[in-house]
């Protein structure tokens, strides 16, 4: 058998063994190529025109390659260790290290570039699907065409060639450093020695649990008004991050074995098969993988949280636009409104027009704020609000000393909660008018241009309004003192009206707004975020799942002799398999559960800004769990093979 045959046989044997690795390799090439194709795709201009899609896609492809590169390096490190025996054998029969390096190099070359070839091929067809998804999700109307981009191909080949060179460098260093003896011993020396729990470990375990618990606790209190200044708030956020990440690390390092040890102690030496296989082995294994598991859990929690939150904002884009702009179109001057409505009439589009005069005034709302905001660089005694008359709004009739706040919503409301009733003071230029707040309403009255982004609009009695408007503080007034709202009667004609709006170049005016445009832009932005986070998350999920699977493969091989012993003692294959299922439930379940818990608390803090919604989070979590379970199942199948061959 010459060297070439040796390489070839090795390759065939390894592919059967590492099919998942080959799959992950092809998958990552495919995804990368698809993204780079997208980046160079001429149709991206359509996206680029409205939202800076190109830049985002470029950043994504860089992140993608970072994830993939780390994965490949890590996987390679696992495999080269596994094959150390084989390398030692080659050395023993007199091959030089350079020769062995050459064999590995050729083998990897075939594997990598084979995967590269297949990956680009699949990725090319896949890119159309990706573009379709992107178009669909961002609401861009366009036809996805298949463009083969040479630049994309060159870039993909280049990037993976660089990764290949780095991996070969790693292998070279590994081979150079080893002596024959080391190579034979490597697997056993890598394992941490099994010994009794020390007090130190118990302390680590307890600190880990408290860290996570404390982080969760603070995160649920984050926006309850306990942290009032920005410094405090950022301090709290940094604390949560630090406590949770460190806690997670210590959890894997100590808490798992600490908890399992407690369970074991309670059994007083009498363990059943499930406990033998799961408790005892996970106790020691999780410790040595703690850094890896921490990274996997934290990043996946981040991905889940981001995905859920962008999903929420994606689906609330229209609702947000409605609270921000009360009418389909709004203008700040009568000329603009006239220009628009004239054209509408000409095109026979029926509409309703609303005209509301707005005065901006300082209001003392100190007494109705629920929390104390002394430290915030904002004075509740002089809050600037938009004031409108009761006559401008249908169905509102107020007494002279009454006032109604409306359209106070979103993040600001949670951040600065107000009481429903109380006393406020309206400051005109030369007098203070005390008013009684009789309630908070939801109906939007004027566009967000008048309300400083999200502050409530104040409705007052007509007499008070007149008093104010003759005596208003000129410094506070905006360029427009009247809000014009145009509502299109038939929703089918909104698109057409929007075209007119753009034809007249009204969007260039300061106070002109189109609700449709706002919703579309929001949707496109959030859609792009969702798209990017989704694909990055998927890549991360698959690569990290693969790594966990490889780790389990290693563990299975290492524990094979244990299965031999247990089968000799009289445990059946079925007994062992049940035990292994239990073990995998923990091996995959613990990181999964921690990841889900982390993301739940992250999303929960995010609800503050994005509004509460369970469905998107649960959907993302279920999908994540399902994909993750696939790797758990695959590992059980692998263990089954190991158990069968154990006796």
């Amino acid at each position, binding site marked *: 058998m010459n060297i070439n045959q040796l390489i070839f046989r090795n390759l065939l044997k390894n592919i059967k063994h590492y099919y998942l690795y080959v799959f992950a390799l092809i998958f990552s090439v495919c995804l990368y190529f698809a993204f780079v194709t997208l980046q160079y795709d001429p149709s991206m201009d359509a996206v680029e025109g409205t939202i800076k899609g190109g830049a985002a896609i470029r950043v994504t492809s860089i992140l993608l390659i970072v994830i993939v590169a780390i994965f490949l390096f890590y996987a390679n490190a696992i495999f080269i260790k596994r094959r150390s025996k084989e390398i030692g054998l080659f050395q023993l029969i007199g091959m030089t290290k350079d020769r062995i390096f050459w064999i590995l190099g050729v083998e990897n070359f075939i594997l990598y570039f084979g995967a590269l070839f297949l990956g680009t091929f699949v990725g090319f067809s896949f890119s159309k699907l990706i573009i379709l998804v992107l178009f669909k999700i961002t609401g861009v109307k366009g036809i996805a065409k298949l463009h083969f981009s040479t630049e994309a191909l060159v870039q993909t080949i280049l990037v993976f060639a660089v990764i290949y060179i780095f991996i070969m460098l790693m292998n070279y260093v590994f081979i150079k450093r080893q002596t024959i003896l080391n190579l034979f011993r490597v697997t056993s020396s890598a394992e941490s020695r099994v010994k*009794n729990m020390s007090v130190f470990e118990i302390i680590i375990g307890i600190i880990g649990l408290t860290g996570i618990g404390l982080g969760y606790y603070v995160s649920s209190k984050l926006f309850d008004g306990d942290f009032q200044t920005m410094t405090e708030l950022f301090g709290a956020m940094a604390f949560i991050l630090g406590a949770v990440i460190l806690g997670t690390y210590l959890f894997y390092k100590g808490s798992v074995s600490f908890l399992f040890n407690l369970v074991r102690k309670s059994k007083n030496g009498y363990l059943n098969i499930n406990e033998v296989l799961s408790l005892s082995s996970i106790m*020691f294994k999780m410790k040595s993988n703690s850094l890896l598991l921490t990274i996997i859990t934290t990043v996946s929690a981040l991905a889940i949280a981001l995905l859920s939150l962008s999903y929420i904002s994606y689906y609330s884009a229209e609702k947000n636009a409605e609270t921000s702009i009360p009418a389909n179109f709004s203008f700040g001057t009568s000329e603009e409104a006239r220009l628009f409505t004239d054209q509408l009439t000409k095109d026979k589009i029926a509409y309703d027009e609303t005209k509301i005069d707005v005065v901006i005034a300082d209001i003392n709302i100190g007494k109705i704020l629920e929390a104390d905001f002394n430290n915030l660089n904002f004075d509740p005694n002089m809050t600037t609000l938009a004031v409108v008359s009761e006559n401008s709004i249908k169905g509102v009739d107020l007494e002279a000393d009454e006032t109604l706040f409306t359209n106070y919503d979103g993040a600001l409301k949670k951040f600065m909660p107000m009481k429903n009733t109380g006393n406020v003071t309206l400051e005109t230029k030369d007098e203070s008018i005390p008013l009684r707040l009789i309630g908070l309403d939801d109906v939007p009255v004027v566009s967000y241009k008048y309300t400083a982004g999200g502050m409530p609009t104040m409705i007052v009695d007509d007499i008070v309004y007149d008093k104010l408007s003759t005596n208003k503080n000129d410094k506070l007034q905006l360029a427009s003192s009247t809000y014009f709202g145009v509502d299109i009667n038939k929703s089918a004609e909104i698109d057409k009206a929007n075209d007119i709006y753009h034809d007249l170049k009204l969007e260039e005016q300061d106070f002109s707004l189109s609700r449709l445009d706002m919703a579309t832009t929001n949707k496109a932005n959030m859609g792009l975020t969702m798209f990017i986070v989704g694909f990055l998350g998927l890549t991360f999920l698959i690569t990290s799942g693969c790594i966990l699977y490889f780790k389990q493969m290693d563990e299975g091989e290492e524990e094979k002799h244990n299965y031999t012993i247990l*089968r000799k003692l009289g445990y059946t294959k079925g007994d062992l398999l049940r035990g292994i299922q239990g073990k995998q439930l923990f091996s995959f379940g613990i990181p999964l559960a921690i990841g889900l818990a982390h993301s739940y608390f992250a999303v929960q803090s995010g609800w503050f800004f994005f509004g509460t919604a369970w469905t998107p989070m649960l959907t993302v979590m279920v999908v994540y769990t399902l994909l993750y379970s696939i790797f758990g199942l695959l590992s059980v199948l692998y263990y089954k093979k190991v158990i069968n061959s154990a006796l």
Partner: protein
Amino acid sequence: MKILEANQIQKSYGNKINKQEVLRGVSLSIEKGEFVSIMGASGSGKTTLLNVLSSIDKVSNGTIKIEGSEITGMREKQLAQFRKNKLGFIFQDYNLLDTLTVKENILLPLSITKTPRKEAESRFTRIANELGIYEIKDKYPNEISGGQKQRTSAARAFIHEPSIIFADEPTGALDSKSASDLLNKLSSLNETLAATILMVTHDPLAASYCSRVIFIKDGQIYTQLNKGEQDRQHFFQDIMKTQGILSGVQYEH
């Protein structure tokens, strides 16, 4: 009472063209309470014989009966059932689970048979004291010496009071002090518990602790020696002599 009865067992490996016969018709029987050892040179088939007798390997031909039930025709599940109730094992490389403490290792066979906890506890205390490993019960295997490991392994083999215990070179990896220590324990357990032990060894000194020695050569029983009334020293000399003849070296006296 016959505990184990093997009749004309044959075992061969490989295919039709390239067949390797390891056992060529071995018949033997072991009475309850006997301490028997099988001796033979490397490659004589003694370990294969033990594997076959202990149901870990399948015979090509012949029958094996343990306590009257024939194991040669049993299915995998029945065999597992059989092993957990009737058999105990001691191996040269201890075969302890690294991730379990000494106590947990020893209690494993009781956990398979779902013995009540209290009963398990009292049996453990008794056997661990007998073998002198009670003090190290909460240690992990890599924290104790080879002799202690082998005694742990022995305790695991005895704890569920199996019909027969198979020991494969139990002293192979031990120094002479630990080895004689273990053998003393084994023979005392053999007497006090009336446990039946079948041991494979190539060490004549280890074999001299037994009541009977079966010699195997090229997959067949060559001869056997009974200790009878003589003391261990003489029995050892006999074994040495027989071994000498067996390996073709003439014993000069």
